């Protein structure tokens, strides 16, 4: 009996992070979890608006949660860290501010339904940890990732603010715990909750290149071969900006950046073609081949 969970993809999961979505579905399939994509999902809002009285920026995330409720769902699973953060914070906001929720519901009158804050927003990592359970994850490992040193990078959106954190805010371990189950070696990354530079990547590429240098150089010094993340924006910044990092820092060395689901799908025995390595700027395949994992 498979468990169907309403799934909110978000825009990057359909474009630059398609490999994240594909591999997450592969991983979920091993535990009989089916991601049921929300029929009419819209932009999550992209950035959570910090202004307390501007409800317009919260209409988009709340509309998505209303549509989950309309489709009979009680929760939604999210992969993208940015979407997770925006949706969850908007949800908490309307739960706490009923007056603002009334305003947002009034704007959404064409939906012919009202939202009540009832939908639960969950990140896939939470479902893997709390519902699937580590022992079941371990059972699915067909190809232990022996000899691979992995650093896990969380960035900010899964952990801050505290109300939406999926794990310990200062010292999260969920990704490391999973990496251990996969048979790889966990490398401690002291900068795992630092900022990747976020949207500065649009206009201030150098800032991102320097953040990338700091994070990846630290990972390298701690002995990592690859770095994993759950955020498409962190992934873009840490992967794509390595060329500028190399230009600006002579001692920088390229490092493959993977989604945690790619690593899981690899350990679960899925074929290389299904793991979506083609779009990566820094190709993870040589590092994996070197260790006999591909």
């Amino acid at each position, binding site marked *: 009996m498979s468990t169907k969970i309403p799934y909110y993809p978000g825009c990057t999961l359909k474009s630059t992070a398609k490999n994240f979505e594909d591999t997450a579905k592969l991983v979920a399939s091993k535990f009989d979890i089916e991601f049921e994509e929300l029929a009419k999902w819209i932009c999550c809002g992209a950035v959570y608006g910090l202004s307390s009285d501007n409800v317009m920026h919260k*209409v988009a995330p709340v509309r998505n949660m209303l549509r989950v409720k309309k489709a009979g769902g009680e929760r939604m699973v999210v992969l993208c860290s940015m979407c997770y953060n925006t949706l969850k914070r908007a949800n908490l906001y309307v739960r706490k501010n009923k007056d603002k929720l009334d305003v947002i519901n009034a704007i959404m009158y064409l939906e012919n339904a009202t939202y009540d804050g009832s939908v639960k927003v969950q990140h896939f990592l939470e479902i893997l940890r709390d519902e699937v359970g580590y022992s079941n994850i371990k059972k699915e490992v067909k190809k232990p990732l022996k000899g691979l040193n992995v650093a896990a990078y969380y960035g900010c959106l899964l952990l801050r603010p505290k109300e939406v954190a999926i794990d310990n805010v200062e010292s999260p371990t969920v990704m490391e715990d999973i990496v251990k189950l996969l048979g790889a070696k966990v490398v401690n990354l002291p900068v795992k909750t630092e900022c990747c530079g976020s949207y500065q990547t649009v206009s201030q590429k150098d800032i991102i290149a320097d953040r990338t240098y700091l994070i990846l150089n630290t990972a390298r010094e701690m002995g990592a071969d690859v770095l994993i993340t759950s955020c498409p924006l962190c992934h873009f910044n840490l992967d794509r900006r390595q060329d500028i990092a190399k230009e600006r820092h002579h001692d920088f060395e390229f490092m493959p950046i993977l989604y945690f689901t790619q690593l899981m799908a690899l350990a679960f025995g899925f074929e290389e073609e299904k793991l979506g390595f083609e779009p990566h700027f820094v190709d993870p395949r040589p590092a994996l081949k070197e260790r006999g994992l591909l």
Partner: protein
Amino acid sequence: MREESEKGEKKPTKEKRIPVFIMGQKYEVPEGFTILNAIEYAGYQLKRGVGCREGFCGACATVYRLPGDYKLRGGLACQTVVQPGMYITQIPFTPAQKATYDIEKLKPDVTTFQKFYPEVFRCLGCNACSKVCPQELDVMGYIQAIMRGDIQMAANMSFDCIMCGLCTMRCPAEMAQYNIAILARRLYGRYLSPKSEFLEVRLKEIEEGKFEEQFKEIMSLSKEELRKRYVERDINFKIT
């Protein structure tokens, strides 16, 4: 206007008139008139803000409010019937961002919209566009489809757009949805829609003169035989 009296005699009756406000000025216009008729009845001579008069051209975009209702509604003047106390004004033209591009040099994906209409990504999901659309399109829905790179969905969802411009007037993200949508439909038509392979085959056949015998045969058929052929024709020929 006349109506039958009980005795069957014709007697003139007074046309029922209702009050409407055209650009704030009150007029009494016949009940059942369209907004377009009402404006002309009131004495305005329309040179812009009117076109086909059949609901297809999108030239007569109009916004109105009804008494006791806060909602600003949109409609085509030629298709919307006046209601008592309606406040009406036409929006004959919408100044809007319109990109120039060579369709042969574009990629049918989200990057094309990032280049020509970056304001697409300012969409707040407020749905003000859909609320005012006289064609009752899910305007926000097709903009959101574009944001996630689903050009085919955007092309299909916006297919009935008549480019009246009302969505653009209401959009807090200040984008021109209708010009963005036509780019989606052009990309779909140029790059994504299924190619009709049978058409190439048939064109080649026609060049080779293969139609002559078939025409002769069709011309020789009786009406009954033609009807039978029509009913039994294969309409499920393969397009893709």
